């Protein structure tokens, strides 16, 4: 099944990129593996018939913001660690969080097995919208219903860009 193979390849790439991202010592290498993870995720979005999300993630995250991060890490040498001394508390917290998440997902699977009549896809009724939506229909729905939150988020993005510009101007 080609779709399943594609999903496995993309998921493996995303997981491998994320593992390499958190295991590299240099932030520049982590940035590159983060970009790989995001690009694999955009492939998964495309497989889920979400071209608008693919475009948004690819343009907004993978190109523009990673350019800024690469600039900040590589050119401005903005590579900072919190403390040099070793502490066992974050590692213990990571182990506890990982175990609790694993226990939670295990309990969810066991509970699902105990209720064979209920599957995840039968919880909510299906919507009447046609699927897959075209890019034009999705954009029309988006701008008809959620224009105000979009405007607010764009304002937040503009404030962030202005802040970055002001900070780097003061630094130089």
């Amino acid at each position, binding site marked *: 099944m080609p779709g399943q193979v594609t999903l496995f390849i993309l*998921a493996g790439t995303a*997981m491998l990129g994320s593992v390499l991202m958190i295991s590299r010592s240099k932030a520049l290498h982590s940035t590159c593996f983060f970009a790989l993870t995001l690009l694999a995720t955009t492939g998964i979005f495309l497989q*889920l018939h*979400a071209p608008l999300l693919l475009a948004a993630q690819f343009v907004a995250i993978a190109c523009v*913001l990673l350019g800024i991060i690469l600039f900040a890490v590589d050119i401005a040498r*903005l590579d900072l660690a919190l403390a040099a001394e070793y502490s066992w508390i974050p590692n213990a917290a990571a182990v506890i969080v990982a175990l609790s998440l694993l226990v939670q997902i295990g309990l969810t699977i066991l509970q699902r097995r105990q209720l064979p009549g209920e599957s995840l896809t039968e919880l909510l009724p299906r919507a009447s*919208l046609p699927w897959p939506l075209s890019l034009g229909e999705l954009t029309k729905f*988006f701008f008809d219903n959620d224009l105000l939150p979009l405007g607010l988020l764009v304002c937040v*993005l503009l404030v962030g860009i202005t*802040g970055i510009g002001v900070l780097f101007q003061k630094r130089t």
Partner: protein
Amino acid sequence: MLPTPYYLFLSFALLLIAVIGALIRRNLIIRLFCVELILNAANINFMAFARTFSDVAGQLFAIFIIITMAAEMLVGLAIIAAVFRRWQNAPGRGAV
């Protein structure tokens, strides 16, 4: 369509890796990336359920999350720049 649990397990794996990375790494930029990865895992969940239920609301939430990710990355980078400038002037501490 592929089964929804495939996407859920992928999202769970990414969430687990990101949470572990955010807890054990000390580099601020990598921690920022881990937070972005957590939001990305949430996006995969939203998209999987949007596809399962044929509901466009999941895509809308995912787009909001992507824009929030972008703004958060910019603000986080600005905070890191401010911390970096302060630590550069402090004796005995510096960039790694």
